[in-house]
């Protein structure tokens, strides 16, 4: 945009505000959707102790999502009215904006439609079985660990503070999912096969996490976001070490799925949102 010298200076900060909200939502939506997926195990875990472990982890993710949604809502409420209208196309949220109401973290979770969600495709994939659940978590936890480690150095102090708190939780998540990778990958013939199937199936959803979209690029360039190129290298190193230790085969580099960060999702997200948002949509503002 360097040649657009005639533009008013006021344009630039507003552009950055918008990017920062989208960036906040990318992180928040990942946390909410994986948290919801893992919470589906509540009451169905393979053993009581792991049922509790999975539920604890789901709650960690929801807690991170909540902090980030609060921050996103705060940024959103500070926007000009016309900017607010442009940011989301979900009608329920636009109605709030039109009524000149402030939004909060619940509105962001419950009133956005699928195309306004910015999570990566990986986190919305089905639980299917314990192997798929573990592999999905392991791929995501590895990314999350390096991502929050990088975000500690964000020029944005709120991001840095959220990263510091989250990193302790994420370190444990990674430990938990890595151990399950090794335990099952290097377990029985059946557990090995199920893990390999899950690794192979989910592989094409891993590239998106470390491939920068426009939001990521702008966030990194402005000093608030993480360097995804560096995370890509670290992610692959860690993942191949654990896959190797699990006696599993590392998939070959292949074509990767994309689109989640920019609102193009797999069919799974709609079902998640239908279940998650139903009460607030059917009975607006209900509390229980």
């Amino acid at each position, binding site marked *: 945009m360097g040649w657009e010298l005639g533009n008013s200076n006021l344009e630039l900060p507003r552009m950055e505000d918008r990017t920062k909200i989208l960036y906040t939502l990318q992180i928040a939506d990942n946390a909410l959707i994986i948290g919801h997926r893992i919470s589906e195990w509540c009451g169905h875990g393979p053993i009581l102790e792991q049922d*509790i472990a999975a539920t604890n982890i789901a709650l960690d993710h929801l807690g991170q999502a909540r902090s980030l949604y609060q921050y996103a809502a705060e940024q959103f409420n500070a926007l000009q009215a016309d900017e607010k209208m442009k940011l989301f196309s979900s009608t329920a949220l636009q109605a709030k904006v039109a009524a000149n109401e402030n939004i909060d973290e619940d509105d962001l979770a419950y009133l956005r439609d699928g195309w306004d969600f910015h999570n990566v495709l990986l986190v919305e994939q089905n639980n299917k079985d314990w192997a798929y659940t573990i592999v999905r978590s392991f791929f995501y936890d590895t990314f999350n660990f390096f991502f929050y480690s990088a975000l500690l150095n964000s020029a944005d102090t709120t991001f840095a503070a959220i990263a510091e708190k989250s990193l302790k939780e994420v370190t444990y998540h990674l430990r938990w999912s890595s151990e399950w990778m090794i335990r099952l990958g290097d377990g029985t013939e059946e557990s090995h096969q199920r893990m390999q199937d899950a690794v192979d199936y989910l592989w094409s959803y891993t590239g998106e996490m470390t491939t920068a979209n426009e939001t990521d690029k702008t966030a990194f360039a402005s000093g608030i976001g993480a360097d995804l190129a560096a995370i890509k290298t670290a992610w692959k190193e860690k993942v191949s070490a654990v896959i190797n230790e699990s006696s599993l085969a590392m998939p070959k580099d292949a074509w990767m799925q994309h689109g989640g960060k920019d609102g193009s999702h797999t069919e799974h997200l709609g079902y998640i949102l239908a279940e998650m948002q139903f009460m607030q949509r059917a009975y607006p503002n209900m509390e229980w």
Partner: protein
Amino acid sequence: MAQQTINKNEWPLWEVFIRSKAGLDHKHAGSIHAADAEMAIENARDVYTRRMEGVSIWVVESKYIHASEPGQSEELFEPANDKIYRHPTFYDLPDELKHM
């Protein structure tokens, strides 16, 4: 034989001991199932320290705990009943000593 069949399908049982804060003893908190020691510590963490109950965890496989026989409690514990002189209450303590 029946015992062996059960053990084959279930993870071993572990006893969990939690230290609630630095300086205090580890206290028995309960038991959990786990496939190995690492998992036992993590399961104990998830089951027993979710509400900030602990700062340290010990786990030991239940089969390594050897317990006294309830049937032997007469000979083991009752003889102590009439030996109250073993309590340190028969000494005159100086007033300056506050915490005995």
